[in-house]
């Protein structure tokens, strides 16, 4: 990858701004997932409500990123790796927005789950969330560094999140059968697990975009971690 600058310097500034917006969105989304799981763990309704409110900030950043990307395409007519970069940024902004929506969805369910440790599977969710957050974090690092190998490594990790989900699914269904009184709350937990699993899928999706932007070719099927979630789909 050539690193030297464009003859038109403002072009570099604008691409830098766009990438900055993506990094900012990514940071907020990671924080939102982390906070959502903490709020869930401690039944912290205050924090949960704040996560829902803060989601607007991410939505606004997405709008800004979209406007900037469209402006760059219109005014600079980028080509080759520049074009792939701008298109990837535009798409990634949309995916981060959706990742943040999952965090928001987790936060919205928090008031409906008042378990205080009674529901044992709750203890597994934070570990699963940590994995998903790491994927989001690392894939955005890969985007920042235009690093296709790092993107591939993120894809490889999606399987672990899927495995988490599949085992949680079994545990939660068993729990519901044994404790029918908790069905309502546990269903919410199941959705939360599903949300985390989807976040992993979205990170994988971003990884594919990063790979294409960096190399101009699509990631080979086997590297994509195209792992079918076998249960609860």
């Amino acid at each position, binding site marked *: 990858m*050539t690193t*030297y*600058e*464009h*003859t*038109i310097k403002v*072009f570099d500034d604008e691409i830098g701004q766009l990438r900055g917006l993506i990094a900012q969105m990514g940071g907020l989304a990671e924080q939102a997932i982390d906070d959502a799981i903490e709020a869930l763990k401690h039944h912290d309704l205050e924090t949960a409500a704040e996560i829902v409110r803060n989601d607007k900030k991410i939505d606004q950043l997405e709008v800004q990123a979209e406007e900037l990307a469209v402006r760059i395409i219109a005014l600079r*007519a*980028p*080509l*080759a*790796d*520049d*074009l*792939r970069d701008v298109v990837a940024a535009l798409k990634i902004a949309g995916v981060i927005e959706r990742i943040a929506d999952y965090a928001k969805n987790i936060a919205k369910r928090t008031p409906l789950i008042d378990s205080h440790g009674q529901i044992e599977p709750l203890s597994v969710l934070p570990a699963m969330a940590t994995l998903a957050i790491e994927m989001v974090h690392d894939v955005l690092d890969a985007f920042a560094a235009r690093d296709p190998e790092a993107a591939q490594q993120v894809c490889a990790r999606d399987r672990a999140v899927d495995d988490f989900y599949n085992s949680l699914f079994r545990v939660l269904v068993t729990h519901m059968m044994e404790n029918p009184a908790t069905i309502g709350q546990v269903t919410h937990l199941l959705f939360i697990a599903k949300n985390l699993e989807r976040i992993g899928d979205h990170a994988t999706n971003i990884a594919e975009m990063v790979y294409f932007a960096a190399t*101009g*070719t699509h990631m080979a099927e086997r590297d994509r971690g195209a792992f079918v979630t076998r249960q609860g789909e």
Partner: protein
Amino acid sequence: MNVQSPIAQHKISARHVNVFYGDKQAIRDVSIDFDRDVVTALIGPSGCGKSTFLRTLNRMNDTIPSARVEGEIDLDGEDIYAPEMDVVQLRARVGMVFQKPNPFPKSIFENVAYGPRIHGLASNHAQLADIVERSLKRAGLWDEVKDRLSDSGTALSGGQQQRLCIARAIAVDPEVILMDEPCSALDPIATAKIEELIHELKGRYAIVIVTHNMQQAARVSQRTAFFHLGALVESGSTSDIFTNPRQERTKDYITGRYG
């Protein structure tokens, strides 16, 4: 592309072409093919040899005393630099449109009629008028000039003059049309008209166009060839060249990182 024979023959095949101006080499070992029904854009930084190479395709370089061409260029499999090649005939088969519209200081009608007349394509005035009308129509100029065919060609606007030159080039029923920056003196509307015309003409001819406008190359061509310092660096489908060029030099040029 020619699909009739299993071994598709290209309209033009250039092989190991070198061009010298005196001792200075302007084109270095260029090999490339051009096909009917395909628009090929030649791009590259100023002075890289695009015009020089384009002119080899109809022996326009013959008119430059210091120019010397080596290698082989075949038109339908026939070497155009062979001694028996009739250059006047060749330039009718391989027509050219230049950067600045250059109509003759004669009537619009005469501008278009000139070629068919000297090539004996019409045996009477009615036939000639027919060719003129058809060519002007194909060049998208007929409606604008049909009531003033005896006006001077130089009285037209720049964009109209360029379409007149295209009409003049197609009046002799060429097989290949070479265009050297045909829109560089035109405004966006006139440019759009020429681009639309190129698109319409594409089906009948092999078209080779030199352009400095990357967007224009992307819009009008199906294949793109990138020249640098007299060499052909990369050629391929236009969409590949503009989204994912193979060569670093191509990428640096089209993304504006050159030099």
